[in-house]
Every structure is written in structure tokens, then in C-alpha cells.
């Protein structure tokens, strides 16, 4: 391999590390109007009167918009391929407000200070309703959160809005109770995973302008430019051709920007006023008024026979959709496919949840997308089962682990695991952590115990049979190349990975390839970067587009050199005949192709979607120190081995893993969205919402095993999400091993660990 596996620097490093204009806010035109949002102080209410007269008189205020001014077409902001499985249950501004912080009015002014002056002068009368603040009491609650008659589903997702059910899912295979009755060991437990915030360092922001053709141009910090274009087109009632969406460099996403957030407001204001406008959320708004991971309360039963075979896995949850159904169904369903197949010797499984509307901030996408949530109860329960049976928890897992070529009860008919060095990864993680030669619990001093815990994880690579990527690669008029993609580099380095795949295919050096991305006027359709799709799906489309271009280039060389193209060798820069008599560079060829009657401008174009979503695999082993007096858990070491197929860029894959593990540590030990009894978010800044700092994480050790995935290009799978999935259960197991304390609620903050220590 010439380029794959190399640790190239990211192609945007120089720009983003020098302070040059690169991110959305850096490009806001100086004459753009500032938009501020007046927000609801109530968790659930109807606006009965809204008076904007006094506010409009504030100097500098250009316009104020309320629910009376916006189009009445409901939409979803979920960044998913059409037809989205998320309910169309939103308006740009709604007469009903459904959580504290929901939008009430848009104040548009020449600057931020004028807008802020006007905001308190808007007088709103609310009819306040009893809010639904506990997902366990949401179903058939007297308050119906979405009582509107025009709420729309594209197809049935088990929703019943009049009962506050956004959607529901149940998959049962086999006879659960009969199989459980045959088991020698059954563990049963409840586990709760909390709502968490993606916390990209760049908050949500968008500006909009009108171009010279009177079209709407939206520049936004988004993972999904094409989905944003479609959603805005629907909401404003205009065609996609009237809209251009551009994503500059963005300051992180982690799924938060797979859902529209700020885009609608400048889009609406600018389209209405035909003037540029912008909105930048502060951290308070970003934490309070976007989308979070869905909280889930699980009940799990796992049954095994005395030979150590897991016969039954039964997982039932209640899930909190919050105020809107964005990603409500698919975050749940995705979790099944990425957890249960790990242990495929089962005779019966159930995976089931009602996902209910509440008056919380809406749920959405967060790295791991349901798999993180599902693997938390499953892996904790497997560890509990190993303890109950008195066997090594890795041995139990190995005995039940799916093998290559095998299917699982939760797989689709005919689906098998096509690749994966699962056992090799486990062996490597054991060696890294010295698992076999050390106790799983040890005394550090009179106050502290040490422990080791383990968890396994799958994820997917793209969304099978739904998402597909299109890529175009052109040879420019000087013989260099440009690749056009609608995938979105959000810092993970996908532009660099795609450039490596393209250069691997064409053979050229990296400096001959430029990747241009995420501008809907310029690049072909791509759903965007989510679902661990870019390196696998867009990467395979990249290879196919480059194959096509290469073929065309060889044809042209053959024509001009008057030789059979099949006799030519090509390295991306030049061709030569075997006998060395004829040679020519792309630099010499390209000008000939863009002039004269024999001109033939060359481009390769490919669209590719997969029929499967090959699972990357990860083993995580956590080593922690537990303070018996306070319950404080300190991560000491984390050993991570990932099988993401062929590693495209070792450095970037390593940093993905380290970053994912640490986000997982945040979810395991520190981060949680908390509301007051009135539904007011209490964790709306980084003082109260605790992101891990560099002193809170211990040392992360990363390695890879490389299986070869046969379905896409170059054996590649994915890495972006699988890496967040093991931290919570591995740390839970480490605490359990260290102290015997079984913590079943996330995050495992000192109070909870201390209580568990008292209860053991």
C-alpha cells in the first residue's frame, strides 16, 4: 500500500492551527442582521397572547417574528435520508412550547446589543400546562405533548402521539420464557443510562445570504448539508434548487450537528427580508436548546446453561424522546444490531422499547447512536453473569462470541459477519493489560481498591440499504486532481482519509489531490458524515470514481500516444510503455484535453451504498482506583484494541480511539443532563456539565488488529463510533471487581458508588 496505513497530517491542519478564518463565525458578513431567540420559561404551555410593539420600537430592531409569521408545514430536523423515520412534529416557531428553552420569538436587529435590548420588551401570555417530566409516567399522561392533528409520519414507526408515544419497537425471536426456564443461571437487573450532551467546542451557528441569482445561501456548522437543504426547502415551501448549503471547517459534531439546530432561523429571516442574517448560540443555548443522547431505563435478563452458553438475552427499555421525535426510533433500533449479535448462540431474544415524548430537550444523535446505550446494560449483565457463574468474564464472552461467517438471531435474514479478528483483538487487549496474570481486584492502601473490567462492542459502517454516497473526481487542466464529496470533515480527518483512498487508487502523490467537500451547489449528493459511514461508504465511492477516472485517463493516453491503453503503466503522474519508448505525464496530457475539437475533460463519478453495515469491533479494558470513603472513581489505565478493518491513517485512527474512550469515560463518570422539578435544565454550562479534563482520564493505550472487510474498498470498516461504546460497562465492571459495589445508574458519580458500596 502506497498511502493507506500512513499517518499523514490532516489536510486542513495548517489553516485551523494558524488562526486563519476557517469556521462559520469567521465568515459572517459584517452587514448581517443578528438573530436572538426569545425562549419559553415554561416546560409546557400555549402562547395565548404575544405583544411585540414595544420591542419593535427599540432602535436597530429590524423585525420580530412569532408563530403567526412562519409557514405551517411540519418537518423534522433529523439528518436522515428521505423518507426519514422521524416524525414531522416541528414548526419554525410553534404556538405550543414543549420544553424550557423552546423558541417563542425571533428578534432580528442590526447588532446583538439591540436585539438583547428588545427581547425583554416582548410580552407573552402563556396558558401553562402540567408538564411531563418523567418518562415513566409519559404514556397516557393527561398532558398530550403533541396534540396537533398535522403531525406526520412518513411510514409507521409504532407512534401514538395522543398517548405521548413518539415511536416504539419490539423484536422478539424464540420463546423467551420457555428458554429461560431451561437455563441454569439467569441474571436480571435494571440499568439506567442518562441523557448526555455531545458538547462540540464550537456551538451551533449559521448565517444566510442571498446570492446574485436571488437564491438562499446557508453557511452552517453542520454534519449534513444535503439533509439541511431538504429540510429548509420543506419548511419554507421552496425548491432545493433555490438553496445552497455550505459547511466550512466545523468545531466538532459528535452527532449533535446531524440534527438541524440553528439553520432554520437565518434561513427564514433572510428569505423573508432578502438580507443577510446570522445566529450564534452561546453555550447556555447549546446545552439547553439542541438535542442530546436519549436517556433509557433498561430491564435486562440474561440466561445461560451450565455449559456457559448464553441462551437468552431479553432487553426492554423506556426511552425519553424529549419534546420532538428526531432520531427517536433509529437510535433505539440501531442499538440492537450493534449489541446483541456479539453473543449469537442464543435461542431467544427480545429487544423492545417505547420511546416517549416528554417536556425535556429533544433527543437526537450522539456518537454511538443507540449502541452505546444498548451495550451498557448488555455488557454489565454479561459481567454479572460471569460473577454469578464464577467464571472468567473474558472466557464467558469468548465462549459465546460470534465468529466470521456466522449469523445471529438479531441479524437480518441471510446476514452474516463477513469479517472480524475478534478473538485476536481480545487476545491483544489481554496482553496489553496483562489480564491473565493479575488479580481483577487489589488493595492499593487502606482507603483505595484497584480493579479491572472489560467490555466488548460492535458498531456499524454506514446504514445498509439506505444511505449511499456519490463522489466525483476530476483531472484538472494542469494534470492534478480534485475530489468532490458531500461528506463532512468535522475534525476527524475524513478529507484526509478520502484523499489517501483516492491517491492509493490513482497512484499519485498526496499533493496532487485536493478534496473539496460539503457545498451542495458543487459536490454530488452525500447524506453527510454520520453512522460511521464516511471512510467505508464514501471511501468506497471514492475508489470507484477513481477507478473510472483512471480508465478514462489511460484511454486518452493511449489515443494520444497511439498505443493500446492496456499496455500502458500508470502511476497517477505519468504513463509509460513497457519498453520505455513512450512516456507522457498527466501535466502534458491535461492541457490537450481542455482545448480544441478533440478536447475531452475527464472526470470519474460513482455512487455506492452497501447492502450491509459491517461492524467494527472493540475490546476495552478499564483499570480504576476506587476511594472506599468517598466513592470517587479514578480511571488509571484504559486498554483499547480496535478492529476497524484496514487502518487508513494510523494516527487519526488512534486519536479517534483515544477521543472516543475519553468521551465514554465522561459518560461513565462525570456527565449528566439534570433538570429541576419544573423542568429547567440545571446543567446549561460547563461548570455544571462536567466534561472530562486531562486530569480526569488516566492513560489511554490503543492498538489495532486489521481484518479485511470484503464488501467495500481496501478492506475498510469504520472507527468513529465504536470507540465510545466500551467505557461505561468496562468501568462499571472494574468498580464491581475492585469493590463488589454494583452501580447500575450512569454516571457513576461518587454518591452513587458510595451508596452501592453501602448496599453490597
Amino acid at each position, binding site marked *: 500500500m502506497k498511502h493507506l496505513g500512513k499517518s499523514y*497530517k490532516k489536510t486542513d491542519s495548517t489553516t485551523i492551527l*494558524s488562526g486563519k478564518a476557517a469556521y462559520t463565525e469567521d465568515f459572517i458578513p459584517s452587514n448581517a442582521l443578528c438573530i436572538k431567540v426569545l425562549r419559553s420559561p415554561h416546560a409546557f404551555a400555549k402562547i395565548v397572547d404575544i405583544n411585540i410593539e414595544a420591542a419593535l420600537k427599540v432602535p436597530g430592531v429590524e423585525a420580530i417574528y412569532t408563530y403567526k409569521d412562519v409557514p405551517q408545514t411540519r418537518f423534522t430536523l433529523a439528518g436522515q435520508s428521505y423518507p426519514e423515520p422521524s416524525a414531522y412534529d416541528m414548526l419554525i416557531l410553534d404556538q405550543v412550547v414543549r420544553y424550557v428553552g423552546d423558541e417563542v420569538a425571533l428578534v432580528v436587529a442590526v447588532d446583538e446589543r439591540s436585539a438583547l435590548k428588545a427581547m425583554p420588551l416582548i410580552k407573552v401570555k402563556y396558558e401553562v400546562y402540567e408538564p411531563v417530566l418523567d418518562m415513566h409516567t409519559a404514556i397516557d399522561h393527561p398532558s398530550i405533548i403533541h396534540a396537533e392533528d398535522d403531525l406526520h409520519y412518513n411510514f409507521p414507526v409504532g407512534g401514538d402521539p395522543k398517548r405521548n408515544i413518539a415511536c416504539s419497537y419490539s423484536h422478539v425471536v424464540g420463546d423467551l420464557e420457555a428458554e429461560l426456564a431451561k437455563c441454569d443461571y439467569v441474571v436480571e437487573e435494571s440499568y439506567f443510562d442518562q441523557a448526555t450532551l455531545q458538547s462540540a467546542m464550537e*456551538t451551533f451557528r449559521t448565517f444566510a445570504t442571498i446570492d446574485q441569482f436571488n437564491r438562499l445561501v446557508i453557511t452552517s456548522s453542520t454534519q449534513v448539508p444535503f439533509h439541511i437543504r431538504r429540510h429548509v426547502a420543506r419548511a419554507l415551501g421552496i425548491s432545493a434548487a433555490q438553496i445552497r448549503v455550505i459547511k466550512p471547517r466545523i468545531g466538532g459534531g459528535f452527532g449533535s450537528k446531524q440534527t438541524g439546530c440553528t439553520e432554520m432561523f437565518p434561513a427564514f429571516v433572510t428569505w423573508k427580508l432578502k438580507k443577510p442574517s446570522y445566529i450564534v448560540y452561546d453555550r*447556555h443555548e447549546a446545552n439547553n436548546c439542541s438535542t442530546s443522547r436519549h436517556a433509557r431505563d433498561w430491564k435486562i435478563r440474561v440466561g445461560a446453561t451450565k455449559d456457559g452458553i448464553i441462551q437468552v438475552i431479553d432487553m426492554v427499555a423506556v426511552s425519553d424522546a424529549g419534546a420532538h421525535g428526531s432520531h427517536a426510533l433509529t437510535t433505539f433500533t440501531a442499538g440492537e444490531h450493534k449489541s446483541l449479535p456479539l453473543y449469537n448462540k442464543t435461542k431467544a431474544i427480545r429487544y423492545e422499547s417505547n420511546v416517549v415524548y416528554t417536556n425535556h430537550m429533544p433527543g437526537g444523535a450522539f456518537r454511538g447512536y443507540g449502541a452505546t446505550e444498548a451495550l451498557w446494560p448488555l455488557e454489565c449483565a454479561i459481567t454479572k453473569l460471569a460473577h454469578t457463574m464464577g467464571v472468567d468474564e473474558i472466557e464467558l464472552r469468548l465462549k459465546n462470541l460470534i465468529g466470521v461467517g456466522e449469523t445471529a438471531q438479531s441479524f437480518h435474514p441471510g446476514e452474516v459477519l463477513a469479517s472480524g479478528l475478534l478473538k485476536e483483538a481480545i487476545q491483544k487487549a489481554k496482553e496489553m493489560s496483562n489480564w491473565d496474570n493479575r488479580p481483577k481486584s487489589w488493595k492499593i492502601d487502606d482507603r483505595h481498591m484497584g480493579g479491572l473490567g472489560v467490555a466488548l462492542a460492535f458498531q456499524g459502517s454506514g446504514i445498509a440499504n439506505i444511505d449511499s454516497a456519490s463522489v466525483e473526481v476530476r483531472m484538472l487542466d494542469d494534470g492534478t486532481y480534485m475530489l468532490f464529496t458531500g461528506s463532512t470533515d468535522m475534525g476527524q480527518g475524513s478529507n484526509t482519509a478520502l484523499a489517501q483512498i483516492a491517491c492509493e487508487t490513482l497512484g499519485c502523490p498526496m499533493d496532487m489531490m485536493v478534496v473539496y467537500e460539503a457545498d451542495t451547489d458543487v459536490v454530488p449528493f452525500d447524506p453527510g458524515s454520520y453512522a460511521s459511514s464516511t471512510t467505508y461508504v464514501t471511501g468506497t465511492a471514492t475508489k470507484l470514481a477513481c477507478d473510472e477516472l483512471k480508465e478514462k485517463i489511460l484511454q486518452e493516453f493511449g489515443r494520444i500516444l497511439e498505443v493500446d491503453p492496456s499496455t500502458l503503466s500508470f502511476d497517477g503522474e505519468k504513463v509509460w510503455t513497457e519498453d520505455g519508448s513512450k512516456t507522457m505525464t498527466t501535466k502534458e496530457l491535461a492541457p490537450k484535453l481542455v482545448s480544441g475539437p478533440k478536447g475531452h475533460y475527464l472526470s470519474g463519478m460513482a455512487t455506492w451504498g452497501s447492502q450491509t453495515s459491517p461492524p467494527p469491533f472493540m475490546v476495552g479494558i478499564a483499570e480504576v482506583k476506587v476511594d472506599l470513603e468517598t466513592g470517587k472513581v479514578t480511571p488509571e489505565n484504559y486498554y483499547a484494541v480496535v478492529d476497524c478493518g484496514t487502518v487508513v491513517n494510523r494516527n487519526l485512527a488512534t486519536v479517534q480511539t483515544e477521543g472516543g474512550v475519553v468521551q465514554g469515560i465522561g459518560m461513565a463518570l462525570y456527565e449528566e443532563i439534570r433538570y429541576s422539578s419544573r423542568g429547567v435544565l440545571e446543567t446549561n454550562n*460547563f461548570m455544571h456539565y462536567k466534561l472530562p479534563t486531562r486530569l480526569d*482520564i488516566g492513560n489511554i493505550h490503543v492498538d489495532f488488529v486489521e481484518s479485511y472487510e470484503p464488501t467495500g474498498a481496501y478492506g475498510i470498516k469504520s472507527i468513529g463510533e465504536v470507540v465510545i461504546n466500551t467505557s461505561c460497562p468496562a468501568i462499571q465492571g472494574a468498580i464491581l471487581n475492585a469493590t463488589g459495589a454494583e452501580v447500575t445508574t450512569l454516571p457513576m458519580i461518587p454518591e452513587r458508588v458510595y451508596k452501592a458500596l453501602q448496599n453490597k
Partner: protein
Amino acid sequence: MEIMLQVNGVKRKVLIETDEMLLETLRNLGFYSVRCGCDTTNCGLCTVWVDGDPMLSCAYPTFRAVGHEITTLEGVAEEAAHLADCLAEEGADQCGYCTTGMMMSAIALSRKYPNATDEEIKAYLNNNLCRCTGYESHMRGIRKFLGGKTL
């Protein structure tokens, strides 16, 4: 109000609001390396130097900067380029949004404590949050930077 502000060695007249914070002033002047991540002094993205010491510009009133030397990443471009290279070689830039603020802390560290241990580096940079990297690659890059730095 109009004040004299010295940024990166250049004195200039600047028109500011009385309650304006240095972060806003610097961004208005086009110093885009200075970014807002939280507005509650928790994240470190807006780190600049006041008379050579790291300071959170989101909580530093601009009028207080009169008579002091303000330095942004743009003002230490040569060291910044070297550190940027060390970080990029480890893939430690990722989204890059927090990195420039962290770099201001790291360059200050390299001047004050060129022989800092790993634990000292972590403690010094603890106020600079990062959501992408998990911090380990920062350490690899900074170690390389400190090791290769000639004083």
C-alpha cells in the same frame, strides 16, 4: 469609548463598549485564533496572554488591557507554527477549534517551564478543554515540541 490597545506589538486606537470583553474586541479586530467555547471561563478556548501570562479573554474587560501587552497566537506565529507541526504530526489537531487556545497555554508553558514533567504539563493545561482528542495526542505533540525547543 476609545482606547489605545497594544496587540501583538502593534498599538492601535479601538472603539469599544464599556462592558466589552477582550474576546469580542480581538475577534472584531480579526484575530480569529481567539474563540468562544463557553463564556463562563471553563473551557480555555479564548486564552490569550496579558503581559506574557495566559488569560481568559472572555472574562477580561477590554478597558483593563490599556497599558498592557496583549498577545494572541498570531503574535507568536513562529513558535505556533512549530507547535502546530508537532501537534499535526500526531493527529492532535482534530477539529482544531480548541487547539489555538491550548497552544497559547502550551507556548507559555514552554517559556516558563521548559523542563516540565508530564504531570506538570497536564496540570498547566488543565483549563484547556478538548472534546475530540482525549488529550493523549496533545501530550505526544507537546513533548515533541518541548524536546525540540532550543532556548
